[in-house]
């Protein structure tokens, strides 16, 4: 690990004795999960619970002429069959726009389609029965008469006058457009070598192990809805459900315990989930919806699917003079709710060229509607597009002037001493470490030796490639991300910490756990700051009735924001405990500390005075023995939100080493390296595994994953046999290194690490494939890099 800045003069609360910060400690929830005691919504059973399945449109675009459910209603086990018209009175439609994305438009979307289905997979009726199987049996007997309408499928022609407009009231199929022009691109390009390419990104999706799952339980007696849901943002779900069901937020409780993977897939509000809430209210009983795998492919948000034309200007000395992009993406028929589907394209504009000190940048992004499944934010939103375009262009520029890909980066990456600074798109950087990261990467991969090996193998007709990709990563978003646009999505988080009557600690946090280790990092921070052992800290999360209000876990914010709130809450509780201890021990708070679950003296080498259990006993059961006027507060709550910087940017660099079989077009990944700077590292193993998991999802995009639609808007590979998720057999060893530039805005100094792996992996692989193929005269700027694509580029087929 490389630390870019010397530690502060005084020891922080994190440097206390027996700190868990920076240590790989086992996650407190491991035993529970390994022993099958996880609380996944998919497993939840409630009394009188019914199951809903959704009859989904087989057409990409069709008018619903008539629905005949009479036969199905009479079938055994069927409780109700509900159409969009019937549900409309229970739950109000929504429009997925935000005011800070100027010009973004969308049409009202219903929980169940009312007159028209706009993608293959949109629900047109709900079948509620005593079991999922009974509901599926009945579904086969619901007859829907459709009138097929022309489907808009190709984003390239979505704006043509001849193309039908999907929502007539909107006037056209353009959802959003953003134009940016910084510096003087034309002038910069006029005296540079200019390289241009079109980068094509396949549409893909997040494929969580546990599908989306919700149980909604309307209790008419309490006039209260309890929603058990695998979500990343319980308070957001609470707000939205209340808003559209006509309830106050206090009438909605959202419970979210264990979640089998999210990756951004579960940070949105889906129509079928809204329908499930409404059905529970309508039918006055618990209703369960668990998407099956085919439904997941057809309705879980898709992502990427961009075509981005890019230009770069470069001088013979390697100076990059300008970037220019024209990005196009198709998002399906509606902008997703409530985060909208313009964010990814907006991020692409924000992030292209971001690692480089190039002032001239022009960008246009257009987001169009089409009759395919909805698109929205998935892990590393926009980052892989921006990184692949930027790093692809940088490699093309290097090739154009005959410069090594590492050297051109050395000459253009923002200097490590140039901070704080801002990018041409207005992104503010507090402290990044591109050069330190690159240096560390080259050392880890032994770059020069690898180049020599590559040359030697080339002589034997073995074609290997090295690809490098620097990246920046958006983490710890402030209110600038969603709040300023009017979304009720909190950017702050809260943590409450209390000492129980035996000296154990209960910690309630508003961040959530989907496997990334939120529970562990919270316990590590609280234990370290308080001076108690981790096994005495119990973390409660995922329950709007029982945690402070907050955003949840998404956009790499859990550690940086929720972690800081935990730190501050624990600090406050520690002070409260020391105040009481001083009163009990006739000492002063400054003369005491908490170490190893005991109050100790500061100045005599830490002599233990009393155990926390003894202090708690006195406070809770013998307060009569305390001096007059002492009112102990053994519970403290703190909230945190970043204010100085809209985002805590992190940075890093990745490298891929691979072999291309030029006869078959198959790519073998041999090794992958990542150096990443996420500031303070709380748990090294959790961070490294976050990075590795992210890399694997990026490698999936690079080589395997693609939602394949036909020209009628049919998703043709909606199953696990034909949609190729990355699997362990094809994954290389992934080495992870760190540079540490702590965030200055928080005492904890942690930034996020969840997007980094995904942000740069595909770019590194694409650059490596092109590096391997360069002597053969082929350049590919399309992912996934399938054998078919590679053989075609090589002219073999």
């Amino acid at each position, binding site marked *: 690990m490389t630390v870019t800045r010397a530690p502060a003069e005084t020891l922080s609360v994190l440097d206390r004795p027996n700190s868990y910060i920076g240590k790989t400690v086992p996650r407190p929830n491991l035993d529970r999960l390994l022993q099958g005691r996880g609380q996944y919504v998919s497993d939840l059973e409630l009394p009188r619970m019914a199951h809903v399945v959704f009859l989904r449109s087989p057409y990409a675009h069709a008018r619903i002429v008539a629905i005949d459910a009479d036969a199905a209603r009479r079938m055994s086990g069927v409780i109700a069959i509900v159409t969009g018209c019937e549900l409309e009175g229970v739950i109000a439609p929504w429009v997925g726009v935000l005011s800070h994305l100027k010009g973004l438009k969308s049409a009202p979307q219903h929980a169940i389609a009312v007159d028209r289905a706009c993608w293959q997979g949109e629900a047109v009726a709900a079948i509620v029965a005593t079991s999922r199987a009974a509901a599926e049996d009945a579904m086969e007997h619901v007859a829907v008469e459709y009138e097929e309408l022309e489907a808009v499928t190709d984003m390239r022609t979505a704006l043509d006058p001849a193309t039908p407009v999907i929502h007539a009231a909107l006037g056209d199929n353009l959802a959003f457009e953003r134009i940016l022009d910084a510096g003087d691109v034309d002038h910069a390009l006029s005296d540079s070598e200019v390289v241009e390419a079109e980068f094509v990104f396949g549409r893909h999706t997040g494929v969580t192990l546990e599908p989306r799952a919700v149980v909604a339980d309307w209790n008419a007696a309490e006039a209260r809805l309890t929603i058990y849901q695998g979500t990343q943002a319980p308070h957001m779900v609470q707000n939205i459900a209340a808003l559209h069901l006509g309830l106050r937020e206090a009438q909605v409780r959202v419970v979210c315990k264990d979640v089998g993977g999210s990756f951004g897939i579960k940070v949105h509000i889906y129509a079928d989930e809204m329908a499930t809430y409404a059905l529970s209210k309508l039918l006055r009983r618990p209703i369960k919806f668990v998407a099956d795998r*085919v439904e997941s492919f057809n309705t879980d948000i898709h992502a990427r699917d961009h075509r981005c034309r890019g230009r770069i200007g470069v001088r013979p000395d390697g100076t990059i003079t300008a970037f220019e992009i024209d990005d196009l993406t198709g998002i399906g028929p509606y902008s997703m709710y409530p985060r909208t589907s313009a964010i990814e394209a907006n991020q692409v504009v924000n992030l292209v060229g971001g690692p480089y000190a190039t002032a001239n940048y022009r960008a246009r992004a257009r987001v169009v509607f089409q009759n395919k499944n909805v698109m929205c934010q998935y892990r590393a939103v926009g980052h892989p597009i921006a990184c692949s375009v930027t790093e692809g262009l940088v490699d093309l520029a290097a090739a154009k002037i005959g410069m090594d890909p590492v050297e051109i980066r050395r000459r253009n990456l923002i200097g490590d001493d140039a901070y704080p600074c801002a990018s041409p798109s207005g992104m503010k950087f507090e402290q990044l470490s591109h050069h330190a990261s690159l240096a560390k990467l080259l050392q880890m991969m032994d770059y020069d030796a690898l180049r020599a090996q590559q040359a030697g193998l080339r002589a034997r007709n073995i074609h290997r490639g090295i690809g490098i990709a620097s990246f920046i990563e958006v983490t710890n978003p402030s209110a600038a991300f969603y709040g300023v646009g009017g979304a009720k999505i909190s950017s702050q988080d809260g943590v409450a910490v209390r000492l129980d009557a035996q000296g154990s600690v209960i910690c309630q946090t508003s961040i959530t756990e989907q496997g990334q280790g939120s529970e562990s990092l919270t316990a590590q921070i609280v234990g370290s700051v308080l001076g108690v052992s981790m096994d005495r800290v119990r973390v409660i999360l995922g329950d709007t009735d029982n945690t402070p209000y907050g955003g949840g876990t998404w956009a790499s914010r859990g550690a940086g924001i929720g972690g800081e709130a935990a730190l501050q809450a624990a600090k406050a509780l520690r002070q409260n405990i020391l105040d009481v201890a001083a009163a009990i021990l006739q000492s002063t708070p400054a003369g005491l500390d908490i170490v190893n679950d005991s109050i100790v003296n500061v100045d005599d080498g830490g002599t233990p005075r009393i155990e926390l259990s003894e202090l708690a006993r006195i406070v809770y059961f013998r307060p009569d023995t305390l001096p007059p006027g002492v009112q102990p507060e053994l519970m403290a709550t703190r909230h945190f939100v970043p204010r100085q910087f809209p985002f805590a940017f992190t940075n890093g660099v990745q490298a891929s080493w691979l072999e291309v079989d030029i*006869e078959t077009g198959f790519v073998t990944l041999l090794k992958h390296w990542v150096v990443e700077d996420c500031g303070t590292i709380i748990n090294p193993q959790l961070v490294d595994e976050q990075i590795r998991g992210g890399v694997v999802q990026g490698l999936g995009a690079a080589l395997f994953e693609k939602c394949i639609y036909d020209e009628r808007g049919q998703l*043709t590979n909606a199953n696990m046999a034909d949609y190729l998720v990355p699997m362990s057999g094809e994954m290389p060893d992934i080495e992870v290194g760190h540079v540490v530039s702590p965030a200055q805005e928080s005492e904890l100094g942690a930034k996020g690490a969840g997007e980094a792996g995904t942000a740069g992996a595909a770019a590194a692989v694409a650059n490596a494939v092109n590096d391997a193929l360069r002597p053969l005269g082929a350049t590919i700027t399309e992912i996934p890099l399938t054998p078919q694509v590679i*053989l075609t580029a090589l002219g073999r087929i």
Partner: protein
Amino acid sequence: MKAAAFAYARATSVVNALELLAAHGDKAKILSGGQSLMPAMNLRLISPDILVDIGGLAELRGITVSAGVLIVGALTRHVDLLKSPEIALHAPLLRNAVTHVAHPAIRNRGTIGGSLAHADPASELPACVVALDAMIVVRGSSGERRIGATEFFKGIYETALSPDELLVAIEMPVAGKSSTFFFQEYARRHGDYAVVGLAARAVVAAGRFTDLRLGFFAVGDRPLLAAAAGRLINASVTSALLSEAATALADELDPQEDQQATAAMRRHLATVLLRRCVAALLARPELEAGVTK
């Protein structure tokens, strides 16, 4: 993703299974390892009225050698093929092939009889039995018959089995000392169905093929015993001759296009496999010409 309701009968003997098949005809499906059948039912791609479970029929399980013939019971699981010393000795091609069949969990349940009767043109074992010149033993109400592997496969998921017949065993001549084998497939991921694959058996003497059976799969509607192999038998294999054979092979194939590959790509990959196979079997790497590994 729940199967439609179906009846279930666990056969107590082969005779009992045949009675059940006779009674229900094509409304019945045989349940062997269930690795293709159950997903298809859960997706409601098929909804048989009744499943006839032959899983308890010990008489259909096991590997024996008798009078120069290797007999593999239809219920023999992939994992058993992988671990069997008899298979390693007498039909190592099957062992090599099985390592490419899906993943361990599936190999623990899937059976050779099920795989052959299912007749997916992209799966490994049908091509192996074609290359190994196996006989497929089937039993029906009117008795037992033996069908040559090349006659058994009729099309995509189609075989010479009639609805009232049960595949009971596979018989293969044991591998002679002079036999050598080659198995390779190109799949997007380990365990996926092949984009193109080749299972081959050869007899090489003095640097020449005296026999060469090339069973290609995923190149058409059924495993294909390539006639182009004939050009390489009892001939001095040169680069030029191999090119001729590759051209003949490409002409012989009628591959389908799918999401993984166009027909042209499949033809190309089949010829790459042919070159690599011949180079490996003759231990002459130079025949790969322009091929990297």
